[in-house]
């Protein structure tokens, strides 16, 4: 089987990820914070270490500002619901995943917030000037956008947008689902207020892991309140990070795996991983473009994207192509709307969607060549 669905979840994972989870399962056990015995301390250290690795990867000064969640969807819900108050105004873009769109639309529906949408162009590119045009006229509390599109792989100019936001006293929340581990993310240099990420994609961790970074000085309401192992004498939620936003027992075994995944990324280097992925992406795009009937989406410029590629073959329903690739060629990719209807409208692929290929560092050139041959053969069947 050839796995090209790394934008949904990465596969395979480095062996060290499972080894770390096994080590926790068999040798550490124990809950964090709740007790003072050696097993509890070891579990707490493990969670601490993962936090520190993530802080290093994203250049977060104080790792206590990074809380664990079960995925980026929870992180985005926590940030959106915890930060926005009644009457607040928000900017987002036409490229967003439903994990941004739906929590925002819900708050709009119940009359809590007002949303402004920045329209991306057909390549999925947003212009920072479009954000400034709105900021000049409206009081905006928060700008929410994805760092890279999960449909076209288009990378957004988050640094420029964050700078503009700051100039107008606004804030930024970045969905780094498709970039964390695959493209440089630097919360300090990029001047981000909040960063949401998921553990099971390019960070190589297991499913059920993710996190949210919240800059010092920004306070958000927790989604849940409960036991934290701290301030146990009080019946009121502690206000100290990370405990304030981490009620209940953490996914310690998952966090153990995530830590090993992030360590793997740090040791290999994000830019090295990106190089491998983009070399494959470049060859794939260049050759797929030559196949008659193939339409590619997203930016021409390889520097403006991550290793996510959407395409269509003329005369085919995307699901038919994906089904054929799976059945006849053992190639796994994802057809349809990828939880991002608005992005598909933006690139002109709604409602049928696209076929999405997402390459990872464990893919190789033979696999790319096999898939190109397959696409070529499929495209000829309908001529």
């Amino acid at each position, binding site marked *: 089987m050839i796995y090209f669905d790394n934008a949904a979840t990465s596969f395979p994972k480095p062996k060290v990820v499972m080894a770390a989870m096994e080590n926790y399962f068999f040798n550490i056990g124990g809950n*964090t914070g709740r007790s*003072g015995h050696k097993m509890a301390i070891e579990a707490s*250290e493990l969670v601490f270490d993962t*936090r520190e690795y993530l802080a290093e990867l994203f250049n977060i000064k104080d790792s206590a500002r990074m809380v664990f969640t079960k995925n980026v969807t929870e992180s985005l819900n926590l940030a959106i619901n915890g930060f926005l108050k009644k009457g607040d105004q928000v900017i987002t873009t036409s490229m967003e995943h439903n994990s941004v769109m739906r929590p925002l639309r819900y708050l709009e529906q119940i009359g809590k917030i007002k949303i402004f949408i920045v329209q991306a162009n057909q390549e999925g590119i947003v212009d920072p000037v479009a954000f400034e045009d709105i900021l000049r006229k409206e009081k905006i509390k928060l700008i929410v956008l994805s760092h890279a599109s999960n449909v076209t792989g288009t990378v957004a100019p988050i640094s420029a947008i964050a700078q503009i936001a700051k100039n107008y006293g606004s804030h930024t929340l970045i969905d780094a689902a498709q970039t964390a581990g695959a493209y440089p993310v630097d919360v300090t240099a990029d001047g981000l207020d909040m960063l949401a990420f998921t553990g099971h994609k390019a960070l190589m961790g297991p499913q059920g892991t993710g996190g949210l970074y919240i800059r010092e000085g920004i306070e958000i309401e927790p989604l849940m309140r409960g036991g934290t192992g*701290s301030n146990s*004498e009080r019946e009121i939620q502690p206000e*100290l990070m*990370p*405990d304030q936003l981490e009620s209940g027992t953490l996914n310690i075994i998952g966090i153990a795996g995530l830590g090993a995944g992030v360590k793997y990324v740090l040791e290999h280097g994000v830019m090295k991983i990106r190089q491998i992925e983009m070399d494959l992406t470049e060859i794939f795009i260049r050759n797929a473009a030559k196949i008659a009937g193939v339409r590619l989406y997203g930016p021409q410029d390889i520097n403006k994207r991550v290793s996510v590629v959407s395409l269509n073959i003329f005369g085919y329903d995307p699901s038919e192509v994906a089904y054929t690739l799976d059945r006849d060629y053992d190639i796994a990719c994802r057809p349809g709307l990828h939880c991002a209807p608005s992005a598909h409208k933006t690139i002109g692929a709604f409602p049928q969607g696209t076929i999405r290929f997402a390459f990872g560092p464990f893919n190789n050139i033979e696999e790319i060549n096999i898939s190109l041959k397959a696409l070529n053969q499929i495209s000829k069947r309908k001529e």
Partner: protein
Amino acid sequence: MSAEFFIIFQSTHDVIKAKKALQKAYIAHEIIPTPKKVSAECGMSLKIEKTVLDQALEILRLKGVLFRIDLL
């Protein structure tokens, strides 16, 4: 008997941060369940001897760990 001090924290994160910093500086310390008569802010505390207390506190302040001390 040299006096023992308890360094008390508000969160587990700070306990571990302190532990790692002290380990790195080879300062003897012990993590113990916080004695009830001291406080219950966080379930774990650091027990440390008077002779190395000043050195330890210096390191923790440098590291930005949130804590307070108590004598038992």
